[in-house]
């Protein structure tokens, strides 16, 4: 591929000290992930998948090696810049959902935009659009603990998308779900990748999900032992599943938000609206979030 990778990891290692014992969570991992890919990390428990993912999110630094996101070395970012990195470039989805229990659904989804200093009105509007996308509009004023696991995970996915990130990191998002809810969540993630060309990185223990991946990284003992490309990654509908859930209708995944007018037209008209979510494709980071972000940094400079 001639394209530059979205994520480039060079010789990455991570050690933990547990008392006197040294735990080598990652050992000399090097890999490249390209825009729009659906990647699965697969491996037994404790092989270092979550560690790798949290490092891509900038939540912990490498022991050695480097992580470059669109050419930018995470090691060079200070804590504010790392927060901005997580807010604007990364959307995280966890096994434990990790919604804030003291906030209702709409507040949870819009919280990343609050960190980006976006006004309440615009936040709510954007969050409502995403609620529709994940088929949860009815529940917007519910508290997270009044929702089922699958519903909570859909909210978490909506939250991960709210700031238009380049990359979705999903760490065992179906781990706590029954198979029906798991299907809903997977359908969302796959559709998210196929329809709006977002880079999705999925950690899973379920071999059934490998078929969705463009590439699978097999991991063992902190190392990537095998990379398997899948030329015919399936989408959900091709699998011939019973398409009963509202989220299964692919067209539902179009994010109809107020940013669409600000995005230049793209040849792919079918995806125009959703394409506003892909700043990497047109190199235009001056989307809604980007603008406000600049304002924020100005304010920060004064402090």
């Amino acid at each position, binding site marked *: 591929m001639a394209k530059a990778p979205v994520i480039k990891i060079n010789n990455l290692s991570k050690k933990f000290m547990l008392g006197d014992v040294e735990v080598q969570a990652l050992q000399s991992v090097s890999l490249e992930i390209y825009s729009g890919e659906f990647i699965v990390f697969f491996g037994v428990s404790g092989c270092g998948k979550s560690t790798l993912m949290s490092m891509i999110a900038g939540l912990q630094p490498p022991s050695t090696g480097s992580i470059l996101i669109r050419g930018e070395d995470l090691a060079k970012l200070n804590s504010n810049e790392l927060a901005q990195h997580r807010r604007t470039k990364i959307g995280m989805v966890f096994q434990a959902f990790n919604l804030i229990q*003291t906030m209702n659904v709409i507040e949870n989804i819009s919280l990343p935009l609050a960190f980006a*200093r976006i006004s309440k009105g615009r936040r709510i509007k954007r969050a409502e659009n995403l609620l529709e996308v994940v088929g949860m509009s009815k529940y917007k004023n519910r508290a997270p603990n009044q929702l089922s696991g699958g519903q909570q995970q859909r909210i978490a996915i909506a939250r991960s998308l709210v700031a238009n990130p380049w990359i979705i990191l999903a760490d065992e998002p179906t781990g706590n779900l029954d198979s029906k809810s798991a299907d809903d969540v997977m359908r969302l993630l796959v559709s998210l990748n196929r329809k709006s060309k977002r880079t999705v990185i999925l950690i899973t223990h379920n071999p059934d999900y490998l078929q969705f991946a463009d590439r699978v990284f097999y991991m063992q003992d902190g190392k990537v032992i095998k990379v398997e490309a899948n030329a015919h990654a399936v989408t959900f509908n091709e699998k011939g599943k019973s398409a009963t859930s509202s989220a299964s209708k692919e067209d539902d995944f179009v994010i109809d938000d107020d940013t669409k007018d600000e995005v230049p037209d793209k040849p792919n008209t079918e995806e125009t609206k959703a394409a506003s979510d892909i700043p990497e494709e047109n190199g235009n980071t001056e989307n809604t979030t980007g603008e406000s972000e600049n304002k924020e940094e100005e304010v920060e400079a004064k402090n």
Partner: protein
Amino acid sequence: MRIIDVLRIAVGNLMRNKLRTFLTVSGVVVGISTIVFLVTLGFGLQNLVIRKTTNLEALKVITLNSKNKEESKNLNSTLVQKLQDIPNVDVVTPSYYFSASIDGYEGLAPAIYAIESGHFEVYDLKTKNGKQFTNETAKEIIVNKKLVDDLKEDQNQIIGKSFKFKITGISQDDSTKTMDVELKVVDVLNDESPGKIGYSPFKVFADTNSNYYNIKVKVKNQELLPEVKKIIESMGFSTSVIKNQLGAINLAFAIINGLLGAFGMVALFVAAIGIFNTMTISLLERTHEIGIMKAIGGRDKDCSRIFTAEAATIGLMGGAFGMTCGWGIGRLLEVIINFLASKAGPADQVPGHLFYTPPIFTIGVVVFAFLVSTFAGIWPARRASKLNPLEALRYE
């Protein structure tokens, strides 16, 4: 994160834990109202003492004294004229001082002050029946209570009676020279002075060859006093003003207020520990929440600001309520005390305002509560900002 959103989250959190917030705010209310109650009582008593001990007219008066014979020669009618010309001077009035004896009262030696009629307020003199001298040259005397007693007279009966005085010290050249004069008592002074004193019209002694005892200068208002005083002192005279005693009263009360405030501060300190405690517990409860916030793009600063805002809000609420409570309790007490005093004794024994709340103090106390609370929230807020999000996310 915008301040408004920080506040939204902070207030939301406080509202969620209503009981805890209420108790923590109550702590601040107790601390602040204690301070307000005690300090406004201090201010109130200070004002009461000043009100009851000094009259306001007396605060406008500068007295020119003579330290020795040489100086006393300079206190004369020319000087009176000169003083009159100083800007902002209202009244200039000289006085004589003599000692005297009274015919028929062996060993009784009252002091006689000769003062100009119409300027009693300058001397802070109050007579029982409100009488002054009939005119500038009337051979009259106003005596104080002690002198009435020593004359073996009754305060009401003595009025209208005449006594034969032998005045000594009427000449600066001849100390043996005396003057006999019969003076009629026109009123009795309302004073508690232990000395035997009488006041007579200045002009009665105009023919004597005596030096002025002192000259009193009354300025147009109290604020102008220091300025005029400086001018007089630059003319080479020593002066005294009642303000000097006021300074001592103020100093004493500054100390008392400080002590009262310090007592209140102890209460506020306990409240600050309460805030610290609440915020720390809140931090431990919300470790997971903070971890999530950081994972989805919250900055360290955003997390710490939420905590700081919560502590500050507690302080602001506590300060405002505490101010109101302290003021209210004082008001209530004042009404009760005045009511009881008016039942029990004469009208002039009713103390009036016992509490005084200067406006600056009102604002100052609320700001102070705000600052103390914010300070108590600094450490929990810092811990929130330093929290490792991965550790926090593991708390499941």
